[in-house]
């Protein structure tokens, strides 16, 4: 190479301390015990969902008429239901539906929402106006009503629940994304890109999107909880996953007729919903604290 370091401009030797950012992130993120506990709950749920056949003590669909509505016992820690199925096993299998709904609907919502928000914010003008008005309209309909309409039109079942929830969550992503993009668009580094003659697509994907990741991660985490809760609600109303498939919402509904005599039937799946949803919320909040530089150092 023919270059030489400009003499008076001696390379400034400096030990930039790599106070590893990852390290700081984990320190803030894991500062509270509740966060660790929440992560554990989420982990347990994921393991249950994946290894349900190995973990569940009974077949969740096997009806045992000799064991109808039995009290909690060693064999059946949460008792059995109306047709003698083991409640614990059904809860374990129910985590599959919950997780599936959470992941797929959030994936649908975030992918569509992020793309719409990105274009809306970056391109602006008429496209922005059209997209955002559509989002407003979608947002004006409460998800449950949307679901009722959707299920009425296309029937219930897992797929439709996922699509409905996915659609109803789209506006949140589009709006968050658009707000972020509008702010980042103004930064000098985007101006620099434009002055180099870079294309819009390149700027959006390489420079805008990576800078929006933190709030998106937080929103995605929080939305897992929202989706799981909504799925339980829909199934409870009978609009979601239909029995005999194991779903926490429909289990609460099943058990709720025996609330006085056999409260564990509703209580156990209810607890599962609450624990998981709260866990996602706590983790989401902790992520926000750890990722948001404004809060850095205060913990």
């Amino acid at each position, binding site marked *: 190479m023919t270059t030489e370091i400009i003499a008076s*401009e001696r*390379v400034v030797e400096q030990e930039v301390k790599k106070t590893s950012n990852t390290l700081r992130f984990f320190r803030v993120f894991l500062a509270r015990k509740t966060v660790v506990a929440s992560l554990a709950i989420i982990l347990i749920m994921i393991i249950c969902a994946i290894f349900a056949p190995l973990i569940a003590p009974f077949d969740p669909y096997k009806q045992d008429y000799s064991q109808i509505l039995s009290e909690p016992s060693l064999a059946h820690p949460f008792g059995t239901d109306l047709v003698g199925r083991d409640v614990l096993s059904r809860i374990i299998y129910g985590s599959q539906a919950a997780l599936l709904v959470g992941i797929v609907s959030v994936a649908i919502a975030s992918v569509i929402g992020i793309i719409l928000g990105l274009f809306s914010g970056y391109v602006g003008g008429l496209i922005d106006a059209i997209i955002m008005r559509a989002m407003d309209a979608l947002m004006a309909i409460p998800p449950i009503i949307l679901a009722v309409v959707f299920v009425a039109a296309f029937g219930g079942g897992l797929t439709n629940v996922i699509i409905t929830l996915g659609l109803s969550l789209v506006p949140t992503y589009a709006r968050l994304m658009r707000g972020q993009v509008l702010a980042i668009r103004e*930064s*000098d*580094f985007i*101006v*620099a890109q434009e002055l180099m*003659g*870079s294309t819009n697509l390149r700027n959006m994907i*390489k420079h805008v999107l990576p800078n929006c990741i933190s709030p998106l991660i937080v929103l995605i985490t929080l939305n897992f909880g929202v989706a799981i809760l909504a799925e339980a609600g829909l199934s409870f109303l009978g609009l979601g996953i239909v029995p005999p498939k194991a779903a926490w919402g429909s289990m609460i509904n099943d058990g709720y007729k025996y609330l006085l005599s056999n409260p564990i039937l509703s209580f156990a799946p209810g607890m599962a919903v609450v624990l998981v949803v709260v866990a996602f919320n706590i983790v989401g909040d902790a992520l926000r604290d750890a990722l948001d530089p404004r809060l850095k150092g205060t913990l």
Partner: protein
Amino acid sequence: MSHLLEVKNLQTHFTVDRNVVKAVDGVSYYVDEGEVVAVVGESGSGKSVTQYSGIQLIPTPPGKIVGGEVLFNGKNLLQLSGEELRQVRGGEIGVVFQEPMTSLNPVLTIGYQIIETIILHLKINKKDARKHAIELLKSVGIPDAEERIDYYPHQFSGGMRQRVCIAMARACNPKILIADEATTALDVTTQAQILEMLKDIVKETKTSIVLVTHNLGIVARYADRIYVMYAGEIVESGTTKEIFSSPKHPYTISLLNAIPRLDDPKGRQLIPIDGIPPSLINKRDICAFLPRCLHRTAACSFKPAPKLESVGGNHYTACHEDIKAEAILEVAAARAAVENSSTEIFHHRQLDNENLLEVKNLKMYFPVTKGIMKRKVADVKAVDDVSFFIKKGETLGLVGESGCGKTTIIRSILRMYEPTSGEVIFDGQNIAKMPKSKLRPIRKNISLVFQDPFSSLDPRQSAGSIVGEPLIIHQLTKTKQEYENRVNELFELVGLNPAWKNRVPHEFSGGQRQRIGIARALASNPSFIVCDEAISALDVSIQAQIINLLEDLQKKLGLTYLFVAHDLSVVRHISDRVVVMYLGKIVEVADWKSLYENPLHPYTKGLLAAVPIPDPFVEETRDHVMLEGEIPSVMNRPNGCAFINRCPMATKECSEVEPPLVETEEGHSVACIKVGKEVGL
């Protein structure tokens, strides 16, 4: 003798990420009645924290005052709390901050805010308080104070807002006024007006002022005594004249060598201070300036940190060595000569006679719309009929107060705006109306260096990929290897270690980031570089590094610069020719020498008079004729000469014609009817 304020061995620490930052590390100083004391030092040296510790304005946690006393009128302020503290803070000690908007509440009228303070501290009734408030506003030079007292902060200009803040800080006749970079964000002319006003306040009321600043010129012009801070410690103190005439501490000396002055001989080489200010985390007990010191000896690296010791009278310095200013200058000069033997010839470059850029009758109007139908009611003439040229290999400086259209010109040239009319001829082609698609290959030849080294680099990309981005966009390298080599080459060109390619921007210091920005600007091998306030966000000691870098690059690569800045000393140092703008028009163009030595336009004269020179002896002999008033908004541009309402030479004639830019001698043009007449045109 007891002092009005005496700080003894103050220690303030911050806990950041479980590390202790010794922001103020054993600082002692005093302030007497009626004096102007300056605290100077680079960003992060602890100037502000020192001042705010005394009045307990630092956030706790993470901050903690771990030791020392702050005696004010005999009381230890550190032991006060509640009502007593409030009486002192904002009562007997007033503070003016850098950003007026942060200390004014935007939803309340300024009158309400001032009256509130007055009632709180002076316990008088509302009517008297209002009267007092109006008097205060008058005393800080707010015209029509009776009416404007009911205005909201946003109805004032930046300079006026700062005046309001000063009025508020003075509400309760404070004994001490702390001005923390109070004029840094303002234009030179406004800055001079406000500082003159503060000086008058000191004279009239015997208030003491603590000027916290990094601007050595201001210090030389206004301060009686100086404290130089470095890394949380005071390294030198004395009277202004002592410090400037016989600086003792290597840091002070280096600072004085690093800044350009308005009265420099041209071609004087700035001697930058190598390295960056130290981190205050885990400070060790040795001289903090050691890594950057040109005069260090082996002993310095193991002796405990030097303490302040008198070098005669009230002049103290904290250094193990006995250093003469001349000695250190010699060391620096010798070093610079060895390392930089090619840099003697500065502005004696042979310039081509060819124009690289020619701007002809450029106009940039922004429509002002009204109502929901967006009906156009007027034009904001941000740039109005501007013509100038830049020769190949030359540096053209562009100066003027904020709002005069500097940025708009740049943006129109770079086609970030679509110019309303006019031509921008770059390398023979008119790019003003060229379709965007055709513009792309031309972009390769023009680059921009931004003001803010923080927001101009994508925080998520590595330094290497930021610098390499233009190579990819313009497909300048064919193979991966070629790309890597070119990026390495660019890193070395701007004095960065190529091994740092994988770091992200926040792992670099401000000056290093600016180097990354410059490397990116150079990547596509442009012939023309626009520097938009490229050094004004940097620390004084770093500014010299970047100025030298830009000059070296120009010599090596034959670059042409358009250098936009508000710092007239820097522009003088770097430019071959200078354009002065006022309200969207050029008022004077000349080569640097005629412009600085023989300014013709009254505005240029006013600007130059407002720039303080970092030398108290020179300052003594200068008469401070202040440019009155402020730049009007482009919306209500006066008829005739736009400068008329501030011009000391204005007569009725001036309101009748718009003075054209006429050449009075070769290469020197002025837009003022009076000047034209003087030379008989």
